[in-house]
């Protein structure tokens, strides 16, 4: 099978084509990352640079039902980051517009 062509044969090919591009990563625990992807493996362990992490924190509002807490986003920046694959939900390539 020719995997060197630009065509996508298997799911990981999509990630391979995103190397050295800014990707969006959704993680367990209401965390999201954007950063430049430099390496990955079959476990979806990732190495990324210029990472911005967004953590969603739901703060309960007094008197309001449990499902209507206010949502806060905590942002954090990291220069170079290894992300363990077991926390990864999805990796999305940059939008090509």
């Amino acid at each position, binding site marked *: 099978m020719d995997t060197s062509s630009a065509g996508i044969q298997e799911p990981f090919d999509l990630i391979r084509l995103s190397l050295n591009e800014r990707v969006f990563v959704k993680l367990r625990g209401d965390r999201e990352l954007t950063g430049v992807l430099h390496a990955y493996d079959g476990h979806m362990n990732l190495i990324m640079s210029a990472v911005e992490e967004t953590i969603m924190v739901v703060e309960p509002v007094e008197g309001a039902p449990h499902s209507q807490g206010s949502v806060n986003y905590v942002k954090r920046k990291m220069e*170079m980051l290894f992300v363990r694959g077991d926390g990864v939900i999805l990796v999305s390539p940059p939008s090509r517009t």
Partner: protein
Amino acid sequence: MLIFSVFKTLTDQTVIVELKNDLLITGVLKSVDQFLNIRLDNIQISDEVRHPHMIAVKNCFIRGSVVRYVQIPADAVDTQLLEDATRRGSRFCYKRCPKFPD
């Protein structure tokens, strides 16, 4: 294998390991194995108020599966080399490490 070899080249660098329980441990990376278990020396906990039981711990072994992130020094990795090694396939090594030959 690729990520393992990257970590081997990072030995003796200062890294920040973030665990899945939100504990942040800064320390010098002493060794790593194929499961990405990590041994850190001279460690420091970033939030000692929240984790007072960790103040006295000076070095530790961290089971790979409890790690969420490892913040690594940006100048310690060659990103071009990383991408090339990733394209070749993850069974390949990132670069030869004289201290830990494959």
